[in-house]
């Protein structure tokens, strides 16, 4: 858990060797920084047909983040990395995002 509640950090790994670009998210994603999240995903995607978003470092996110991911899944082959337990999995299930994106559990 981060003590910097409410702040998110994004790390982008460009596409390489046939692997899509990866956006790793750390901290809290909410209404205050969801635009930055969307811009980061769009920037990382570039011309790639697919994007991976690593959510294993997320401490908190709500439906604002889910909407951003739904937006990305509408036009892109979206893969999400999540922790085996925790509220992100709950959120993916309730929102239905797990039906439009590929969810991979990372230990």
């Amino acid at each position: 858990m981060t003590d910097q509640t409410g702040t998110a950090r994004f790390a982008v790994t460009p596409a390489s060797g046939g692997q899509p670009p990866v956006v790793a998210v750390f901290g809290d994603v909410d209404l205050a920084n969801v635009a930055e999240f969307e811009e980061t995903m769009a920037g990382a995607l570039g011309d790639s047909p697919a994007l991976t978003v690593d959510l294993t470092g997320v401490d908190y996110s709500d439906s604002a983040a889910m909407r951003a991911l739904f937006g990305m899944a509408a036009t892109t082959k979206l893969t999400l990395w999540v922790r085996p337990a925790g509220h992100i999995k709950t959120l993916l299930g309730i929102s239905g995002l797990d039906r439009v994106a590929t969810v991979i559990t990372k230990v």
Partner: protein
Amino acid sequence: MDEVVSSAAGTACAPGVAVRYGPARAAGVWHHLAELQDDRLAVAVGRSTDPALVDRLSSEIGAVLRATGDPVAATAVAAASPAGGPAAARVICAVIDRPAARLTYSSVGDIQLVVAVPEATHTVLDPAVGRPASVQLQPATTVLLCTVEPGEDAACAAELLAASATMHPDQAADRIIGTLAGLPIAVVALLYRHAPAPMSLTVPAVPSSLATVRSRLRHWLALTGADSETAADALLAVGEAASNAAEHAVLGAVHDVELTVRAAVAGARLLFTVSDNGCWKTPSESSGHRGHGIRLIKALVDEAHLASGERGTTVEMSKEWRQ
């Protein structure tokens, strides 16, 4: 709920209560836990040098506690025990009146009762042998009933309790018994965490306030001792309601809109209210986003109710206080 256990590694119990035995197959120690009328909780722990006394004392003391709600009458059972009298039995009985925030207790033999407040200070209470004593419980106080000997071991338990005063009761109990289990004698430790004071926070209904709301609520949830799943669900449900307010309540408002988050413990439930004084936009205008938030909230809490009018929107939520 009524529970009599003479030996267990950890037992399911009342909200805010954690019970641990050490070593795991401890003999000669017991605890009793019963809900009484008027939201009162009766607790007792005991140790006896005569194992034959354990079952009889725990059941008789439990019966008197349930029937009378009187810690003195309950401890008198042990004092009057023919098999060796008070020297053979150490018992402490307490009744916690939750609405009145009052702990009444009495003991027999050398036995320990400690209270600690979140500021990490602790008080070893007077044993009150054969007579009633009572203390007022500050919000989020932790009470420890423990069968260790007075002196060094008791001081150790008290220090551990003070250092665990803001931990989840289960974690605090694990830590205390984890240390005390090294003792050559059997130990039972019973922790009670009194409900924290209700939380109330009013902030501008803007996105940058959401982190403040979560930070305060996380701290408050930790004090309640709610389990991690309950806490995560509550944090998300309240966060979602607050996010909705910050996103929608300000639309069309000509004044500065504020958002108020309240949290309280009521019996065995956690109650949350998120209200704003903004303008309600009908769901069709907000393209279902607010509706999506409400659906999410309903999936996360046991009950959710939304009321909106010209003066703003209020979302009331309740969830079982699980730990």
